[in-house]
Each structure stands twice: as structure tokens, then as C-alpha cells.
């Protein structure tokens, strides 16, 4: 006797209870608090803020706890929450030239105004597991020094001053701010929308695309002109007041890639730009983003689109890991109705195939019999 598979509701409730229990883990071990995640897993928090498209360290930390450390799941939680938030407008453009810099390096100059500042970086650490971290004990405080009051101009500004680097597109304060979360993307997409999608995009996907361009699938011959990380002030242009109001400061990482020159009869040869900007400390992300941004400019700079990284539709429509993970994982949902339809067709095709084979064999047998008889 067939019993229908019922009880979806109870099954779901039980699954959620089990999930919560697994999240807690061994109850003999102290429970992790969101502020510990916020303070000690800062780079995970930064990634979730970027891919979740919302600057909120506490919320991202809580999402990481709720998702058991699955960062794409955490970004998904943040995204869904973001949908419910009201919008008041857009801030003034960030002035990253006025950044309170914690790290700033340039690969194109040995030294430059403001100097090279390594900051808190994994670079030059030897990747040896530090067993001391498993033991108790506080690390010594890092040495400090008074901040250098000297200005720290962006490397790209130094280059552009000489005309060696293509100028940034002029800023028009009246131009509307593109937002692909409010208007569906149409292709070709302008650079503001492309950069927005890259900023929200999956770090791993961008990394692989950037790497592919370095290995020759759409090369851009890049130099890391500058990578800087630090705090910048946010100003919100309040229409009611008629002037910009400071909202506070956020930490961002910026990368300016300087790429092989372009020139034409109308424009003198100059280096071209690729740009990356992300919340928090996210160097891998902004470097990959800058490489991909430059590659996506191939057509506008007179190049031929031949590699995936240069292809807008390919890059932009697959960069979002919330969409990607949802669609890949939806294959877990029941598909038995469609599978039934395919089953029926394959059975029919196999039956026809067998009938044809038998008819052929029978014909061959008849022929063989006849030949044997002759």
C-alpha cells in the first residue's frame, strides 16, 4: 500500500531545530559571540559586507554566526535584510585621496610622496601554522608612531598630472547614480553599473577571472599602481538642508591598476586604468576587481573581445554568488514531474531502438539463411 510522502511542515521544523543544535556545536565549549567575530574574524566580516552589499560590521558578524561560518550564506542573510531597508539617497563621492591611511603601497615607484606603508598585512609572513595561537596569552601591542601630516596623493594623480595616464571620466554631480539593484541591467552596461556588480561580486569568481587574464585569456599588462586601505569620511547630501552632512567614516580598500597604454590619432599614448574599491580590508578582492574592470573596458579602448574576462554579459551575469548558489542548489528541489516526462521519452526511444535493432538482426538472419541455402 502506497503511503504518500507527507509531513513536509514537520520535517522542515525538525530540520531547523537540528540545524540550530549543530550551530551550537559541543556545549562544553564556550559559545562564540558576534562581537568576537566582529573583532577577531574581521576579514570574514569584510567579505560578507562586500558580497552582502551593506556596510554593517555587527550585522555581518551576526550573519556569520547564524550561517555557521558559511560566508556566502552570511552574505545572503545580509542581502535579504538589505531589501527591507528604506533608502534615503546617495552619499557624495568618497575622497580616497583624503583617506586616513593604514596601508598604502605602490608597485610602480620605489618611493613616492607619503611613502610606502605596509600596514597590517599577511605579505611577507611565512605561512607556518602558529601553534602559539592555540594557547592562552595576549600578543604584544603593535608599536605606534604619530601620523605623518604630509599629504598622500594617489599615484594615479601623480601620473595623470604628467598626462601619462588617461584622465578619470569627469564627475558630473547632476548625473544619476546607476543602481542595478533598482533597475535591471541591460547590455552593454555602463562602467558605473559594471563596477557596482564587481563590488558585490564573488571574490573567488573575480579572482579566477583576473587570474585568467594574467595567464593570457585577455591580457591587460597590469601594474599595481597603488593599493591603499584606511578610513574615509562619508558625506550625505541632504536635499532638505541644502548642504552635505558628515555621516561618519568607513574603512575601504582601493586599488588602481595601471595598464598598457592606448593611443590613437586623436589621443596621445597614455596608460589606462582599472579600478577596484571594496568595504573593509579586501586586497585580493580589489586587485581582482581592478583587473576585471580594465578587461571589461577592452571594447571601449578599441580592443577585440576574445576572452571570458572581457565579456560583459559573461562576467556581470555570473558574478553574483547569491544568485549563483541559489540556482546551482535549486537542483536539490524535487524535479520529478519533469524527470517523469524525460523518463517516458527515453523509454519510448529505447523501445524504438530495440525494435529497429531486432528488425535489422532478423533481416540479416534471413539473408544469411538464404545465402547458406544457395
Amino acid at each position: 500500500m502506497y503511503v504518500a510522502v507527507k509531513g513536509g511542515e514537520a520535517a522542515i521544523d525538525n530540520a531547523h531545530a537540528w540545524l540550530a543544535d549543530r550551530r551550537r556545536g559541543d556545549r562544553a565549549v564556550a559559545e562564540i559571540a558576534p562581537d568576537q567575530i566582529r573583532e577577531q574574524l574581521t576579514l570574514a566580516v569584510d567579505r560578507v559586507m562586500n558580497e552582502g552589499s551593506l556596510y554593517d560590521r555587527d550585522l555581518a558578524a551576526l550573519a556569520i554566526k547564524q550561517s555557521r561560518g558559511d560566508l556566502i550564506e552570511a552574505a545572503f542573510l545580509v542581502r535579504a535584510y538589505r531589501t527591507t531597508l528604506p533608502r534615503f539617497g546617495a552619499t557624495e563621492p568618497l575622497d580616497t585621496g583624503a583617506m586616513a591611511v593604514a596601508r598604502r603601497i605602490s608597485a610602480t615607484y620605489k618611493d613616492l610622496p607619503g611613502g610606502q606603508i605596509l600596514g597590517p598585512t599577511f605579505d611577507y609572513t611565512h605561512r607556518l601554522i602558529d601553534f602559539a595561537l592555540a594557547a592562552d596569552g595576549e600578543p604584544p601591542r603593535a608599536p605606534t608612531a604619530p601620523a605623518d601630516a604630509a599629504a598622500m596623493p594617489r599615484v594615479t594623480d601623480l601620473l595623470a598630472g604628467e598626462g601619462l595616464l588617461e584622465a578619470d571620466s569627469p564627475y558630473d554631480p547632476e548625473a544619476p547614480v546607476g543602481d542595478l539593484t533598482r533597475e535591471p541591467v541591460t547590455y552593454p552596461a555602463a562602467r558605473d553599473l559594471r563596477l557596482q556588480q564587481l563590488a558585490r561580486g564573488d571574490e573567488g569568481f573575480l579572482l579566477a577571472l583576473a587570474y585568467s587574464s594574467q595567464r593570457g585569456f585577455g591580457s591587460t599588462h597590469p601594474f599595481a599602481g597603488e593599493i591603499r586601505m584606511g578610513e574615509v569620511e562619508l558625506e550625505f547630501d541632504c536635499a532638505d538642508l541644502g548642504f552635505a552632512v558628515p555621516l561618519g567614516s568607513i574603512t575601504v580598500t582601493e586599488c588602481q591598476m595601471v595598464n598598457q597604454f592606448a593611443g590613437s590619432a586623436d589621443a596621445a599614448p597614455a596608460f589606462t586604468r582599472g579600478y577596484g574599491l571594496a568595504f573593509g580590508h579586501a586586497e585580493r578582492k580589489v586587485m581582482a576587481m581592478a583587473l576585471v574592470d580594465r578587461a571589461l573596458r577592452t571594447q571601449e579602448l578599441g580592443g577585440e573581445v576574445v576572452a571570458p574576462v572581457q565579456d560583459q554579459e559573461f562576467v556581470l551575469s555570473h558574478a553574483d554568488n547569491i544568485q549563483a548558489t541559489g540556482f546551482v542548489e535549486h537542483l536539490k528541489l524535487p524535479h520529478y514531474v519533469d524527470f517523469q516526462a524525460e523518463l517516458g521519452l527515453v523509454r519510448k526511444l529505447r523501445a524504438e531502438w530495440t525494435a529497429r535493432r531486432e528488425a535489422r538482426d532478423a533481416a540479416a538472419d534471413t539473408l544469411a539463411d538464404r545465402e547458406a541455402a544457395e
Partner: protein
Amino acid sequence: MTASTATAAGGYAFAYLDDQTKRMIRRAILKAIAIPGHQVPFAARDMPMPYGWGTGGIQVTAAILGPADVLKVIDQGADDTTNAVSIRKFFKTTANVAVTTRTTEATVIQTRHRIPETPLGPGQILVYQVPIPEPLRFLEPRETETRVMHALADYGLMHVKLYEDIATHGRIAKTYAYPVKVEGRYVMDPSPTPKFDNPKMHLSPALQLFGAGREKRIYALPPFTHVVSLDFEDHPFEPTRFDAPCALCGATGVYLDEVVTDDAGGRMFVCSDTDHCETRRAEGHHGTEWAGEATEATA
């Protein structure tokens, strides 16, 4: 305060989405109804369910749902599949609407992969969850290209594909997401419903809305729209047929699920539409594997 701004449980807006978003979606729906079969872009939001799990249908339902509506949600034709349960629960929580499993009682039916067997009536709305709204996508992956093809009604590529099927397999080897032509103009993906259901779309008195969240598209079939499955004169469209009736309710001419009953090749075929099957059994119909109410009570 209108009904749609009234807040439901948890401090979220009625049916989760804020009024501005609903207005944007309703505009897209109206445009879609005005141009049957045409895919209208809309700014789909990140929903609290994963992309690919019905976010398009959920947003359409959220935008059209009113407090007096009666909602039915099915997946694979069944009301009790996990994702249908999850979506029904979502609207019960966020919109506090009445829910039902009875096709005839529902004003809004959200579905994945099936059209109910009970014919829909005027005033009912069927909301489809759509994964890939573009019928030409697997023939031409680029949106820039397919948009032009739709604009020019250039569907040669699709006909070539169907012809190639016949050349290879002797028939059009498409069993679900079988393309249809709407009002003689747009070729449309009916969502991955089995082709068995295609004829139900034709001249349906109900309004049919299609939502694709990840792909950010909405399209529609207003009531009494001509919906014709693509075919050739010498290879006419053939809906799937089953050899046996439903083993539980004895229905014929309905879509059946194959249920494996043991590991020795035993299988039975039962209605995919659970409401249809239960209603028939309540009316006294029965098949070979179900003798009547008493049997079920002791089972």
C-alpha cells in the same frame, strides 16, 4: 493606511515587500499583461529565499496578494512538497492570508512545474515560478542577441532546433518547457511544466503570471489568450499520454508520477496533482491500489 501598508508579523511590510517595490512589480505585471508573452525586465529584489527557489513567483504573488485572497502553493503538483510548504508558510506569516490546498477555493495559485488538473476559472490567478524565462537561451546564450530575435520575431533558430530533434530522434524531443507561441507573436517558455500541461494554457479563463527572480523578468498571459505549442504540419504537437490510470483515484487523462514501490522493479503511477486525486477519492472514485476511506484510515 491602506491594506497593503498594514504590517504583518515581525515588523515586516504586508507580504514582505515594501509599497514602492510592489508598485514597481505591479507596473511590470501590467505591461506584461498588455504585451502577452513578452518578457518585461523588473528590478527583482534579494528575497529571504534562495534564487532558483521561486523568488520570481514569490515577488509576483507578494505584489498581487490582498488580505482577502486565498492562496494555494504547489510544487510538482503537490501542496505538501517541502518548498511549497515553505512558501505557503512565508505568506501565512508575512501576509496572514487564508491558505488552501483546494484548487477551486484558491484565488491565487503559485506553482512550480505544474498546472492544476481542475480547470481554472475566471478571477483566478496562476503564478508560475520561472528559472530561465528565455525560450531561446539554450540556443543563444546572449541576452543582447535574444532580445533582437524577439523584437524581429526571428524564431528560425527554434524551428531548426525542433527540426533537428525530428532528424535525430524521429520526434520533437522536448518533454517539458516546451516552447509556445502566444497570440501568434512571441515565442514563450511555459516554465518547466511538462508539455502535458501546455494545452491548459490555451484560452484559459484565468490570468497567468510568470515571475523569474534571478533573471529579473516578468511575463503574462491574460485570460483567453491563444497559446499554441510549436510544431510542424507533419509532426504535430503531441501531449504526453499515460498507459494506465491513477492507481489511487483511477483518473485518466491526468499527469502521473511514477512511484517506485520496491527494489524489484515494482512501480505504480499516481496523480501528480494531489488535490485532484484527494477530491476524486472523496467523491468515491478509486484505483487499483486504494479501495476506499476505510483502508486509508487503517493504513
